């Protein structure tokens, strides 16, 4: 087939990008080469619209072993142990085919982690759906949950935390972000940088089929009404093969045979071979006839662009082929030497003894397009004036019922009960808390992880929203008694070609950067997903932040369930009554405008660190951060989980009671302390100039808010737990 501009455009390349290719090659590419360019130069693989801005994120720190640029980030958790982690999106495929889309998202992120030599020890996910009333929502939710469970459960990796939200902006574009943490010894981390000449390049795992061809290009385009036609671009997952691949790779990694290893994810054999060679400043030669194929008559084009799952590419030490083959034979996996490293600095492909492609690797990687896209700065919206008469008409109990049973607050047990969250025998904090926590097997340490996003805040003011998510992630780790170490981000946005959406991206990234820098909470890995839009309608900007922290002694872990009657609950951080952009404003006042709550990074840091100090001294019996829904939601959850009540002290607060209970001011926590420790706790808080007040005293049952308002624990439970199972039944 003769390649021309039209064919290039059909491959998702822009006209000037095609011209650049011809110019760089000094000739017209053939179809296989064009396929390779389209795979390497699409948004998903090249980060062409985002690279310029991502460079500004803080990525270094004392605990950072590996920042962005590898398969995943790596942090030091002391004693020679390290945690490898990353979050990644699988949005487009999940909308087209929810089960396989979500499943292969989970499979892909686990491969990124074990490629580096780490055994996956925890999965998390952040999933976002359209309005519950939208006709597709229920099936998409069911399919995605089954897919995530289907893959993670079979792999035997616990899913320990997650986040689910519903918003009509996702009606035509759901989001599925999957995150994995793996454990590795610091001196046994594997990288993707090839080294040495004439080293054998081996292919292991599943055979290559025609599935997923152009998956990465599909993920770099907007949806339209022909979306169903894209189904064949969705990959099909086989978690059983991946489990075998995991065990086989770890077995091989225990020895010293591997020079470099890279999983075949987006853009399959193309990107894995090019990345390894590029990082090693080498060339690579591949004989495509040697690639194990499961379908007949596959062309070089198809072999190079297939996104069949559960495959790895490895550069081996010379003479280790037999050792490696034995291991993969034992696990019944394909093994083939398909090529070698060269000094040509080209990727050279052969098929039926003919050269079918030859491209200088630097053209594909360093010369890939980078755009400084136009973007529009957002203004901070004006505050709404909410009249006291409006608030005074509301009954606390009615509002609490509506807020607690709202789809974005209510219990997600229906979801996480379908995920195996206890396999591996180290899960010490299950889903439903502030963070999931797993022990570092065989030690006293534990690792905490959470995943957060606040699309509404980001939509109202991206800069503040970006900061807020990082702060919330930090608080979620603090609330379980973990020292926050680093984050991974999954940046889900609309089209970068639209100034508004690009502006949302730029300013969210700026906010994330500012907060992570201030909190010393660097970004070590991540992924960008643009074009989350159907026709002209884009999603609300939805960066997801996955935070990871360390608990040095797991017996000191904190959970949110109230522990003991007669203990006191303190509010840490000041309640100013910020109602704009709160869940309360949206669902009770039907008010969608106004600024999100301000994020004061000094307070975040000070409050968080002081709580860790209190935790360390053993004063904190339970803790929970105050976030979506506000104070009353936070205390309700603590009551529900602990099966205890609370009697509120008479409020000395000057702001309206409703504002006090439902405001979403940032930097706040609830902590439970023993009466006898109160003096010492207060002293520490005062010394650090931390605003704190007593909320009330823990009782056997009933939440007694004031003389007029009493809610039983059973009522709270029914508000909190019923919505999702009822909706799904």
């Amino acid at each position, binding site marked *: 087939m003769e390649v021309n501009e039209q064919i290039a455009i059909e491959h998702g390349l822009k006209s000037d990008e095609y011209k650049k290719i011809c110019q760089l090659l000094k000739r017209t590419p053939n179809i296989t080469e064009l396929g390779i360019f389209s795979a390497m130069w699409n948004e998903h693989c090249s980060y062409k619209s985002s690279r310029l801005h991502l460079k500004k994120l803080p990525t270094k720190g004392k605990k950072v072993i590996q920042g962005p640029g590898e398969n995943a980030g790596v942090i030091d958790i002391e004693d020679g142990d390290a945690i490898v982690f990353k979050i990644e999106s699988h949005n487009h495929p999940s909308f087209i085919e929810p089960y396989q889309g979500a499943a292969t998202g989970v499979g892909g992120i686990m491969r990124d982690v074990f490629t580096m030599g780490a055994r996956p020890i925890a999965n998390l996910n952040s999933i976002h759906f359209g309005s519950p009333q939208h006709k597709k929502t229920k099936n998409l939710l069911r399919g995605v949950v*089954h897919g995530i*469970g*289907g893959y993670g*459960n*079979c*792999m*035997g990796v616990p899913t320990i935390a997650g986040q689910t939200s519903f918003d009509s902006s996702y009606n035509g574009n759901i989001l599925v972000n999957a995150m994995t943490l793996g454990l590795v010894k610091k001196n046994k981390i594997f990288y993707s940088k090839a080294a040495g000449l004439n080293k054998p390049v081996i292919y292991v795992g599943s055979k290559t089929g025609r599935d997923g061809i152009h998956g990465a290009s599909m993920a770099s385009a907007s949806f339209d009404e022909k979306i169903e036609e894209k189904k064949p671009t969705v990959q099909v997952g*086989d*978690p*059983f*093969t991946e*489990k*075998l691949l995991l065990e086989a790779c770890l077995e091989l990694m225990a020895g010293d045979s591997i020079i470099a290893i890279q999983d075949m994810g987006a853009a399959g054999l193309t990107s894995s071979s090019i990345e390894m060679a590029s990082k090693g400043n080498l060339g690579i030669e591949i004989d495509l006839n040697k690639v194990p194929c499961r379908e007949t008559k596959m062309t070089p084009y198809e072999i190079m662009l297939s996104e069949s799952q559960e495959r790895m590419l490895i550069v081996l030490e010379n003479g280790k082929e037999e050792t490696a083959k034995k291991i993969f034979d034992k*696990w*019944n996996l394909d093994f083939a030497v398909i090529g070698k490293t060269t000094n040509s600095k080209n990727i050279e492909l052969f098929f039926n003894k003919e050269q079918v492609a030859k491209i200088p690797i630097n053209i594909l990687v360093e010369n890939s397009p980078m755009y400084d896209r136009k973007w529009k700065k957002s203004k901070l919206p004006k505050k709404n004036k909410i009249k006291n008469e409006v608030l005074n008409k509301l009954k606390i109990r009615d509002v609490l019922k509506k807020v607690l049973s709202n789809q974005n607050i209510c219990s997600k047990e229906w979801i*996480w*009960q*379908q*995920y*195996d*969250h*206890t*396999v*591996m*025998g*180290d*899960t*010490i904090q299950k889903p439903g808390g502030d963070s999931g926590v797993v*022990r570092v097997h065989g030690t006293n340490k534990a690792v905490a992880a959470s995943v957060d996003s606040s699309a509404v805040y980001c939509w109202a003011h991206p800069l503040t929203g970006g900061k807020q998510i990082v702060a919330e992630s930090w608080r979620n780790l603090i609330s379980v008694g973990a020292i926050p170490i680093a984050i991974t981000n999954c940046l889900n946005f609309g089209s970068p070609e639209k100034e508004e959406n690009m502006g949302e991206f730029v300013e969210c990234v700026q906010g994330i950067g500012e907060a992570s820098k201030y909190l010393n909470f660097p970004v070590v890995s991540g992924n960008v997903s643009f074009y989350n839009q159907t026709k002209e309608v884009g999603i609300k900007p939805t960066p997801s932040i996955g935070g990871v922290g360390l608990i040095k002694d*797991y*017996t000191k872990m904190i959970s949110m369930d109230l522990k003991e009657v007669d203990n006191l609950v303190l509010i840490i951080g000041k309640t100013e009554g910020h109602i704009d952009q709160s869940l309360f404003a949206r669902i009770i006042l039907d008010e969608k405008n106004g600024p999100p709550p301000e994020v004061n990074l000094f307070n975040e840091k000070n409050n968080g660190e002081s709580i860790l100090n209190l935790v360390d001294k053993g004063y904190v019996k339970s803790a929970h951060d105050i976030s979506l829904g506000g104070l009353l939601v936070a205390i309700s959850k603590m009551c529900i989980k602990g099966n205890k009540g609370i009697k509120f002290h008479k409020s000395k607060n000057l702001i309206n009671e409703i504002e006090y209970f439902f405001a979403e001011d940032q930097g706040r926590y609830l902590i439970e302390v023993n009466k006898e420790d109160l003096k010492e706790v207060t002293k520490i808080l005062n010394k650090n100039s931390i605003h704190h007040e007593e909320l009330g005293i823990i009782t056997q049952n009933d939440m007694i808010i004031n003389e007029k308002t009493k809610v039983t624990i059973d009522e709270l439970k029914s508000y909190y737990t019923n919505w999702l199972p009822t909706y799904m039944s």
Partner: protein
Amino acid sequence: MKSSVITFPGSNCDRDMDVALKKFGFNNKMVWHDDNELPKSDLVVLPGGFSYGDYLRCGSMASKSRIMQSVINFAKSGGLVMGICNGFQILVETGLVPGVLLRNKYLEFICKNVFVKLDNKENVYFKNLNKDILEFHIAHNEGNYFCTKDQLKEIKDNNQIAIYYCDKEGKIEDQYNPNGSIKNIAGIFNKEKNVLGMMPHPERMIDQSLSGEDGSIFFKNLINNIK
């Protein structure tokens, strides 16, 4: 006391079981599915997981593994064989215990704590246990135990029902049945009571930091009974 845990391709609770058995004093060995011979063992465990990806039918391919012939011979000669979750599914496929395990009634994987009531303590697994109700943990997609009327009569007559799903007071009712199992059955024995298959995972309940400690009670008692 010597134990062996069989690892099939796709097993994923093999390590957890190894940890649990060692914690309570077993000298445990991991045995590869493709081996011919079982090492000398006082107890053989078929662990949970997704052997052969649950393809064809859960447990069916594993039941034909090379090592399984030795396991079957060991069981037939009176050796103790315990199958947990996928291990139970494998046992059913070998015919060592009667019945089948169908997809959960609500067609969803389910992972949570459950209570089980012991039906019969006249066996090496539960003898001398000072509790009748244990809190265990389940995590499965195909735990819906089913057998024919005749089989049910037979296993009842032979006291082969090991545990039932119940509430914390021991009430065996429909609402405490997580997966639709016939008569709330969570685990059964062979006729001789040396083979036990059950869906719940005692190995996930061996530490107060985990889901609970009733697994510890089970394992401690088991090793004492074997001694």
